[in-house]
Structure formats: C-alpha cells, structure tokens
C-alpha cells in the first residue's frame, strides 16, 4: 500500500532564500538610527552622546513612542488610524478641563488656588485616558459595523475629534491647570541619585512609556490577542473561517490605539501643564511614519514593537542632532521623509517577492 512509503518530502525543493529586501528591512531601521547617531557623534562628539542629551531625546520621544506603538497594532491588522493626533489633543483637553473643574470653584481656580487638586488630578488623568479609549471605540465601531475603510473613517474622525477639542476650548490653549500635575507628577525626578551625572532625569512619562511599550510587546508576541492581530492582517478571510471574531478583535485594536493616544495626551499636561489644540496636529503622520520605518507593513501581517521603538526614535534623534550641530532642524522633515519612502519601497519589494506564491 502506498501509505507505507514516506510521502515525498516537500523539503526536497530548494528552500526559498530570504530576499535582499527581507534582509534589508530587518536591519534597515537599526542601521539608520546607528548612522544618525554616528554622524552626529562625529560632528559634535561631546554634546550629542552626553547623558543629558540622550536623556532629552528619551523624554522628547516618549509621547511619539506611545502613538507609534498604538498605531502599530492597527497597521498590523492592515488598517490605519489617522485620528491619533486628534485623540491625543482631545484627551489632553478633556483631562485639563476636568482637572480645572474639580480642583475648586471658578473663583478659587482664578485665584490660583486648587483646594481639591489631589482628587481632581487623578480623575482628570483617568478621564483623559478614557476619552482616548472611547474615541478608539468609535473608530472601531465605524470600521467594523459600517464596513468602511479605516483610512476614510479615521480621516473623518481626525477632523471630528479635533473639532470637538476646539469647541471645548474655543480654539485656545487650556490654562489654569493645577501646577501640581507638572511639579509633583510630570516632572518629578524619580532617579535623584547622581549615578549617571546630574543631567540625567527619570520622569514619570518616560517610565509610563517604557512600561506600556514592554506591555505592548508582551501582548503582541505572547498572547492570543497578538496572534489574532497578525492573523487578521495576514488574511482576514482565513481568520474569519477559523472562527476568530474579527470585528470584535478590530474593535479592541482601535480602542487600544485610542488608549495609547489618550495616555500620550496626558503627557502634555504632565510635562507642560497645558493642553494645546495647536500643536501635535501632524503627530499622526509622524507616528505612522515611525511604525513603517520600523518595519511595520501597511499591507498588514508584519510589524514589531522593537521596530516601532527604533522608528519612533529616528525623528527626535535627527532633530536633536541637527539642532546641536547648528543645521536647520527643518532638515529633519526632509530626512524622515526620505527614510519613509525608502522603507515603504523596501516593504513593497518584499511583498511582491512573497506574493509569487
């Protein structure tokens, strides 16, 4: 009987070698970051690699990092979330408004006294983050229930969420936030020992960003949630066939992206003590670029948290290095744009190589 013979092993075929594109993109972002660091270090040996300066890069990047991590999940499912910048702004505005509201009577606040700030600040932070989650759920519901492309849905909510933030503030920066959010929480140095020199500051936003980044990596790599995220981006029809509740999962993924943007929004209050509707408006593109530069494929199914971390550090590293070197910081935009196009080009090449099934 034929069954007694070993089936012809498919491994007899030549193993497809990883393409140049594949190998390139794996090391691509790390190389770019290294190149940036080396160039600036050579230019400005003392300043660029100093602890204080690296510390600044870390602090500057923590906010963009959160946006990037959140949107990485969405992009891996072959979706996109353009609204994260508006979610960030709206969350910051809601958090600021709530803090002011609960800190004391309008008279007290006007007199710069915040009797209830110990309660108002946590409530404000919580509601700010919750705002992010709700915005993400709205995106997810629109994408899954109306069966609309995420590009269109989040392009729409990009305007809607920003518009609501502007309506809440009258278009101006929210002032009068209890300063304790900045002094006692946001800028508190949690590492007061002079181990790395006096320039090193470890402030809560950095720790929050670090913890959430690690948690995201664990979620994506070791849990069923992460597995389904990749599966949906890789082949949505197959995911449905095997019984994965794709809509439910996508809803969670958009909520997660909203959550990360909401936390990023609270960083504004922690670091600057204000919620501004004027800044951050292009952070969505910066975060998406960072994720893509970090190897996340806009076609779905591919992406890592590690890549996104490196991708998120490239703009801040560039800007920082340019400023120190006395080069106009506007070159940052040019450089990031070029790197982005390169990254997508490599991704496309890889994709079409893989698709020859």
């Amino acid at each position, binding site marked *: 009987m034929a069954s007694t013979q070993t089936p012809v092993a498919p491994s007899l075929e030549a193993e497809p070698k990883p393409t140049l594109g594949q190998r390139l993109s794996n090391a691509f972002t790390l190389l770019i970051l290294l190149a940036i660091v080396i160039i600036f270090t050579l230019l400005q040996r003392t300043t660029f690699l100093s602890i204080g300066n690296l510390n600044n890069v870390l602090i500057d990047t923590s906010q963009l990092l959160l946006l990037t991590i959140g949107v990485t999940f969405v992009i891996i499912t072959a979706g996109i979330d353009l609204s994260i910048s508006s979610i960030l702004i709206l969350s910051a505005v809601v958090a600021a408004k709530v803090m002011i509201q609960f800190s004391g009577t309008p008279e007290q606040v006007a007199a710069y006294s915040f009797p209830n700030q110990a309660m108002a600040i946590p409530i404000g932070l919580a509601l700010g983050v919750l705002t992010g989650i709700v915005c993400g759920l709205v995106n997810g519901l629109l994408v899954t229930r109306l069966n609309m492309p995420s590009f269109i849905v989040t392009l729409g909510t990009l305007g809607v969420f920003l518009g609501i933030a502007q309506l809440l503030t009258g278009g101006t920066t929210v002032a009068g936030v209890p300063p304790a959010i900045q002094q006692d929480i946001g800028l508190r140095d949690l590492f007061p020992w002079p181990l790395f020199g006096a320039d090193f500051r470890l402030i809560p936003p950095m720790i929050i960003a670090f913890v959430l980044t690690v948690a995201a990596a664990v979620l994506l790599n070791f849990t069923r949630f992460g597995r389904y995220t990749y599966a949906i981006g890789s082949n949505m029809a197959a995911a449905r066939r095997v*019984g994965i509740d794709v809509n439910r999962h996508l809803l969670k993924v958009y909520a997660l992206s909203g959550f990360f943007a909401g936390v990023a929004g609270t960083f504004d209050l922690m670091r600057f003590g204000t919620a501004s509707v004027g800044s951050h408006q292009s952070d969505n593109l910066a975060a998406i670029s960072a994720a893509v530069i970090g190897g996340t494929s806009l076609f779905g199914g591919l992406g890592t948290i590690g890549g996104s971390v490196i991708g998120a550090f490239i703009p801040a590293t560039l800007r920082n290095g340019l400023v120190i070197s006395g080069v106009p910081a506007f070159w940052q935009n040019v450089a990031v744009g070029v790197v982005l196009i390169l990254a997508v080009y490599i991704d496309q090449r890889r994709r079409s190589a893989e698709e020859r*099934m």
Partner: protein
Amino acid sequence: MVKAVAGRAMEPVLQVENINKHFGAVHALRNASLAVWPGEVVALIGDNGAGKSTLVNVLTGVLRPDSGTMIFAGERVSFSSPQEARAAGIETVYQDLAIAPHLDAVANIFLGRELTMPGLAGHLGFLDNGKMRRETEEQLTRLRVRIPKLGRRLVTLSGGQRQGVAVARAVMWASKIVFMDEPTAALGVAQTEMVLDLIREVRNTGIPVVFISHNMPNVFEVADRIVVLRLGEVVAELDPRTASIDDAVLAMTGARRRDARGEGAVVG
C-alpha cells in the same frame, strides 16, 4: 436516495438528500444527494460551475442550503457556520487557501484553537507555544507529513509546502470527515503525490475524505468511489476499479450517462 451498497454494514458518516441551492437565478444545486461511509475516499468531480464547491460549502457550514436534509453521525443537523461544522468534527481544505501567510505552520494549524498556558497566564491569553509545537510535531509524524522548519512564516515556504500546512491542519483536527476542495490544483507532481498519500493516510484511520479534483489520473489513483456532478445534479456514481477515465469525462460533460457498474443508463 439511500443506496444499499453491497457489503456495507456501517451507517454512513454523512448522508445528505435533495439539497437545493440558488444564487439568484442560478440553480447551483438541484436535489443533490450524497452519502459518505467511514474509511472511504470519495472523489467529487464535474465541469467548472457544476456545483462542487457549493456542495462542499453547504456541507461544511459555509453556505446554508435552500432545502434538503443532512444527517451527520446519525443525527439531523444544519450547520449555520463553519465553526459549528468544525466543532462536529468536519474539517475542510478550502479552494482558496485559508491560511495566514505571515504566521508559521504551528500558528496556522492552531489558528482559532490556540492552546493557552495553565492558570492565570492562560486566562490572560498567554499562548503555550511549546505545547502547540509538540502536538503539531506529534500529529505530523503520525500522518507522515514533513513540513520543514515549523517555526518559519509560511511566506517563506513554497506553494506546495503552504498547501501541505493547510491539508495537515484539516486532517489533524478532523474527527469525523475531511473535505478538500481542489487541494492539489496549485501543486507540482511531488507535492500532489504527498497530498494523495495524506488522503490515504487519513482514510486508513477510518476517517473518510471527500475531495474535489480535475485531475482524472489522481482521482482514479486514490478514490474508492467517484461522484459526478453536472449542472448542480448528481448524475452518476462510478467505481474507479471498473470505470474508465472516458466514462468519467462522459458523465461530466453529459454526452452519455451511464453507471459504472454497467447496469445500463442511469439518469440522475
């Protein structure tokens, strides 16, 4: 249309009768009936558009029939989703590869049925990748399937190897019956041979396999029984030991209808 086949004492695993399915004006299945017994390989053949995929989709819960009865493992059933059919022990290799190419073989084989860690970690959704891998290796050894580098994402494998994963997934999970819709359509000679061996391997465990193929030599090589569909109707049933490829082609194209056992013309 319960056919009393000589020497078959067992009950059929699956018995469907008078299935009808319309797509708008298209009458894709016309009173189609089919019975499948344990330990047999049934080939479903027919011209393009004959309704083979539609029949498989109805039997595996992807589509709901407009009318007809389905008796599975002795009970009347109607599956409202592929998951229900799967839960009942029916596995399918779909014509359009239903794998996630960015995941590895183990992840694909366990997709939708992931094993999680014991205890709290499991409740949090932490995967037990080691256990899934061991079980995959065990099953693949039992079925004599070789998939090189279980940990590699399927995009890096050849089409044949990917199809091997899809087939392995179905046979690994099936407890009652396996359907394969053109499992060898995209494969070269060597991989086709592997899939055919796999079909025999499954049959030998007592689980019947219903497979669709356009490759007549393959069909005659592996099938115990050949069911011919034409324009949504079951028009003939052939015995590959006595019928010829010409008989099969004639039945598919409708030039002449005859029963393989030579009992004269049987009009379906």
